[in-house]
């Protein structure tokens, strides 16, 4: 590693041209394809000429664009800043102080892997759009920059902390997903959500096509569909398994692409996650910056005794989700291990259990069960369509759901930690350290106020946690305790 080279202006790896080129082509194609489609469909004599022109234009613009933007992008380290100059038409100069840099993440798609370069994403705290990315840096250069930034950050903190960093604990692999794990994750994904994604994608596609061709694909489809109205039940019976199979296949492919060879490692300062088949992504999180740890499961995943683990870091609100370290397939011992790393000694502590008031169950059944059923009945009467009364079959289910909701929603309190749990069919736990909270809110709807109940909401730098239907006296006690712990603790929350 030639460290001196970090301090004078320099460009990215020469392969960056290829990566910028690919990015630009993708962008241009996205913009241009409806036009191309119109030309192809409308035909005409000069069809081939037009197509050649379009392709030539796309290639020309993206090639010159990528070369210029490669030449115009320079960076170097200047004092305690990372200095970047870039821009085709408008020159932009960026100065990012090291102390503001939150994370330095690596990413490699197939092309990156081919040339042994990495995409580097740097997130600095604060305002929106604070993400800086390098399209391609040589591997050792990228590592040198990351090491340099992290070392600088460490020396900014008090000497005590710097010692902590130097006492490099050995890295320890916590989770390594096998192919069989991936299959299990694929099976236990939320297939309803996948259905939504597929549907949304098809809809957007059809919308695009119908705009481009100036004809209504939807009308065409519904015309066809109406012919089959009589057989719709049979179609449904066939469609459901077919759909489930497609959805399963789709989620499996997505899971493999995203989580292939996933390695979740404990590092000296926190955690590291590397995963992906075509695009290898590397994310890291500093232990102190983790604010909330969440682990959840759903009925199918429960059969495999698997959980989805997420570590939320402090970040600007719009990227909290993206900055979260997400391990979709985790077993209980691995979760315990992670919890113990972030909250040392948490395995032995005893939590005080606080359930929610039984009225929550009644309210759930009322709003999620009775009211929808009544609405369906009203529609049934008005429209004289009595088959809608079948909706009442859902009512007993809503009672079961209300019972599950009531049983699973609870707060577990310890003097230093807190776990909020929720769920109906699945279960979700969120754990945090009390002193890392930012503020506390008590709220009461009119109904809660009449029944002397309240909702406690706790805000952290990576999202909030709340627990409803707590008797007001207890809620106030919890609030007072939390505030006292926040205010009497001298540690920084990050």
């Amino acid at each position, binding site marked *: 590693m030639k460290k001196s080279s970090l301090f004078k202006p320099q460009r990215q790896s020469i392969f960056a041209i290829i990566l910028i080129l690919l990015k630009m082509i993708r962008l241009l194609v996205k913009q241009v394809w409806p036009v191309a489609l119109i030309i192809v469909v409308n035909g005409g004599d000069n069809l081939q000429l037009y197509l050649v022109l379009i392709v030539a234009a796309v290639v020309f613009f993206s090639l010159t664009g990528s070369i210029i933007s490669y030449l115009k992008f320079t960076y170097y380290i200047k004092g305690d800043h990372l200095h970047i100059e870039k821009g085709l038409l408008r020159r932009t100069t960026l100065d990012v102080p090291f102390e503001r840099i939150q994370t330095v993440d690596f990413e490699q798609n197939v092309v990156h892997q081919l040339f042994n370069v990495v995409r580097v994403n740097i997130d600095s705290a604060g305002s929106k759009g604070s993400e800086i990315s390098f399209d391609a840096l040589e591997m050792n250069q990228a590592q040198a920059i990351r090491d340099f930034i992290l070392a600088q950050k460490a020396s900014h903190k008090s000497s005590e902390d710097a010692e902590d960093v130097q006492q490099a604990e050995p890295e320890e692999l916590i989770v390594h997903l096998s192919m069989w794990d991936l299959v299990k994750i694929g099976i236990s994904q939320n297939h309803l959500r996948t259905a939504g994604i597929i549907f949304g994608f098809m809809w957007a596609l059809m919308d695009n096509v119908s705009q481009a061709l100036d004809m209504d694909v939807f009308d065409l489809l519904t015309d066809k569909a109406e012919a089959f109205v009589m057989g719709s039940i049979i179609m449904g019976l066939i469609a459901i398994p077919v759909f489930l199979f497609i959805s399963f296949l789709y989620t499996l492919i997505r899971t493999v692409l995203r989580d292939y060879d996933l390695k979740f490692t404990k590092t000296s300062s926190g955690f590291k996650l590397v995963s992906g088949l075509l695009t290898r992504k590397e994310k890291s999180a500093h232990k102190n910056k983790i604010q909330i740890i969440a682990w959840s499961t759903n009925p199918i995943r429960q059969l495999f005794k698997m959980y989805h683990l997420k570590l939320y870091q402090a970040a600007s*609100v719009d990227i909290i989700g993206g900055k979260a370290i997400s391990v979709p397939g985790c077993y209980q011992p691995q979760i315990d291990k992670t919890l113990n790393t972030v909250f040392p000694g948490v395995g032995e502590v005893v939590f005080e259990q606080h359930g929610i008031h039984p009225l929550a169950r009644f309210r759930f059944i009322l709003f999620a069960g009775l009211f929808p059923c009544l609405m369906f009945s009203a529609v049934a009467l008005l429209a004289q369509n009595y088959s809608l009364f079948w909706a009442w079959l859902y009512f007993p289910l809503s009672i079961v759901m209300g019972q599950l909701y009531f049983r699973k929603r609870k707060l577990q309190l310890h003097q230093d930690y807190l776990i909020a749990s929720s769920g109906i069919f699945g279960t979700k736990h969120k754990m945090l350290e009390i002193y890392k909270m930012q503020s506390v809110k008590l709220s009461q709807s009119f109904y809660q106020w009449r029944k002397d109940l309240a909702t406690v909401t706790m805000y952290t730098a990576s999202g909030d946690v709340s627990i409803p239907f707590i008797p007001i006296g207890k809620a106030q*006690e919890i609030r007072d305790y939390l*505030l006292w712990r926040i205010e009497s603790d001298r*540690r920084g929350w990050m």
Partner: protein
Amino acid sequence: MKQQIFTNEQVDLSTLPSADDLLYDGLEKNYRRLQYIISVCVTTIALIGMVVGFWMLDIPLWIALSSVGFWIIIGILKLVIITKGFEHKGYAIRTHDLVYKTGWLYKKQITVPFNRIQHVDIKQGILERRYRLSKLNLYTAGGASSDLTIPGINIEDAKRYKSFILGVMESDEEE
């Protein structure tokens, strides 16, 4: 850095400072007056616009009257909400935090500890300036949902509170 002064002590929960029996400071009366004025102006302008529109478009009288009546009722309701809401808004400053309560039908009480505040600022609109009112904003790292805005504070008071809070934040950092 890592002293945990209180961690291992047995805590008697009944002796903890409570945020219930506080004497809340209400917002400035001028804030309510300003809200009344704005609300009356908006309703009046809307009504005038509506009457003119109905007259020009030749809408049947009963529709015109009932919609004007509807908007007058909405306007009166708005005044009731302002009056009732004002009674329920208030703030209290303690040694280590600031408490703000609001809500007539949906009650909220938010407490922001001073040692979690990122920065404090005061905002003042044109109309507010005329009544010497201002908004005190407290920002934490918890994102927009946990940031606290206290409206209707006299500008001089807001400045005093701001410098008090900044003082506490600074002395916190020195320790």
